[in-house]
């Protein structure tokens, strides 16, 4: 199966089709809507299912194997966030706030994307390392914390410079100090919010519970947390499609640069991720999920964190690009591409890789 065939066959799965259906429903201005309570519950359910599954796997395989990939993932997430910032600020000419907000949105991970990835692999009959769920949990706040830290540093610096250039005026000084203090408490608050955010809490909790109960304890709830999984994603993706569809008009406003960024950057991050994971010894499926973690952008957690941490950044930019462009691209196009790349590097060794890649991709 070549890459176009794989994309095509992925396109014709219920998950992708119902997502596209949601987009169309929104475009023809249908009043179709999954009620809020359901669409707020589904991510919690999906994360619990992912976590339980990951925890059970880790009980079987131990978690020593996890540390190197996790450290590498954290490192790459930080590196990529910095890289995004440079590109957005220098090439994209975005202001400091938007640049950091976007950089961390793409440095962070998307739990829904991860769910779709797991379903995709299941469909391909391929498994992945259970500890990737733990990496998902740990990776969630990393990029945000970096971006918030750097934003606050930059703001402090700006303020100090302003202060110098204005001379030392008393009233202004107290204001400045207040600003810096606010900034600090800001970071502290965001740290707390990130770590106690519902996504991380349910994910980590479920991993631990999965680890404790194992296959046997899971059996009584496996129908809910395993067998209903794909159907639940389908229902959630109808709503995600509707929301993405409602945002399509805004895409024009984000500009050509950000549109390109939202497609090229995940591709780059994702393929690098697959290759690095392969080198680290992850399985075919594991490398795909590792790549997907790095390729995905956050669109549920991001606004919750960034509106408080960098309120000056425009949410219309980071939500629209992450949900309206990158998410569809990732689940429809990039996932099969990364699967292809991973298949190649897992079967044939890394020698022929770039040769093969260029054939497969173009």
């Amino acid at each position: 199966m070549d890459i176009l065939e794989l994309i095509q066959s992925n396109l014709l799965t219920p998950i992708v089709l119902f997502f596209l259906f949601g987009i169309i429903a929104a475009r023809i201005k249908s009043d179709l809507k999954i009620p809020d309570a359901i669409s707020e519950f589904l991510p919690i359910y999906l994360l619990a299912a992912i976590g339980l599954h990951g925890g059970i796997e880790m009980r079987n395989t131990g978690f020593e194997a996890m540390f190197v990939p996790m450290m590498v993932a954290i490192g790459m997430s930080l590196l990529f966030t910095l890289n995004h910032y440079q590109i957005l600020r220098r090439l994209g000419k975005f202001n400091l706030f938007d640049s950091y907000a976007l950089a961390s949105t793409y440095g962070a991970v998307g739990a829904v994307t991860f769910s779709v990835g797991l379903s995709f692999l299941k469909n391909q009959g391929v498994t992945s390392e259970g500890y990737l769920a733990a990496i998902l949990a740990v990776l969630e706040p990393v990029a945000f914390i970096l971006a918030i830290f750097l934003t606050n540093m930059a703001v402090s610096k700006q303020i100090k410079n302003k202060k110098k250039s204005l001379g030392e005026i008393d009233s202004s000084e107290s204001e400045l100090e207040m600003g810096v203090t606010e900034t600090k408490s800001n970071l502290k608050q965001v740290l707390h919010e990130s770590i106690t955010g519902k996504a991380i809490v349910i994910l980590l909790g479920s991993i631990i519970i999965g680890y404790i109960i194992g296959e046997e304890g899971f059996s009584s709830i496996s129908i809910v947390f395993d067998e209903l999984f794909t159907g639940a994603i389908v229902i959630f993706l109808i709503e995600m499609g509707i929301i993405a569809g409602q945002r399509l008009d805004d895409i024009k406003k984000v500009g050509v640069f950000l549109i390109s960024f939202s497609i090229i950057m995940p591709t780059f991050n994702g393929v690098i991720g697959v290759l690095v994971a392969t080198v680290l010894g992850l399985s075919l499926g594991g490398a795909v999920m590792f790549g997907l973690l790095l390729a995905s952008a956050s669109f549920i957690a991001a606004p919750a964190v960034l509106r408080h941490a960098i309120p000056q950044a425009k949410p219309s930019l980071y939500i629209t690009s992450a949900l309206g462009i990158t998410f569809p691209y990732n689940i429809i196009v990039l996932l099969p591409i990364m699967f292809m790349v991973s298949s190649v590097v897992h079967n044939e060794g890394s020698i022929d890789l770039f040769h093969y890649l260029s054939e497969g991709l173009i």
Partner: protein
Amino acid sequence: MKLYNVKLLTVTCEILAQKNVIDILTKHDITGYTAYEVEGNGARGLRGQGLKNEKNVKVEVIMQEEKLQDVIEEIARTLFTNFAIVLYVSDVGVLRTEKFV
């Protein structure tokens, strides 16, 4: 029964600014408030469809006139620039002024 004049401050804002509004109230020693989710349209576009974080909330606070100025000043200064927010004040009569500081 005598009705005493107090002020009702209503703040309609994006849901992620609710915490900021309530923090400002707390800072001014106001603990009582009522809040509920709403949707709406304004300068920052249609809000209330889609993701929970993209909804609005209304926060209503009964308070004495004395505190009003400080509270709305701080809300205006810290939140008007970056958040979808609207604020208005009306006159209401209450029975127990001691409940509303």
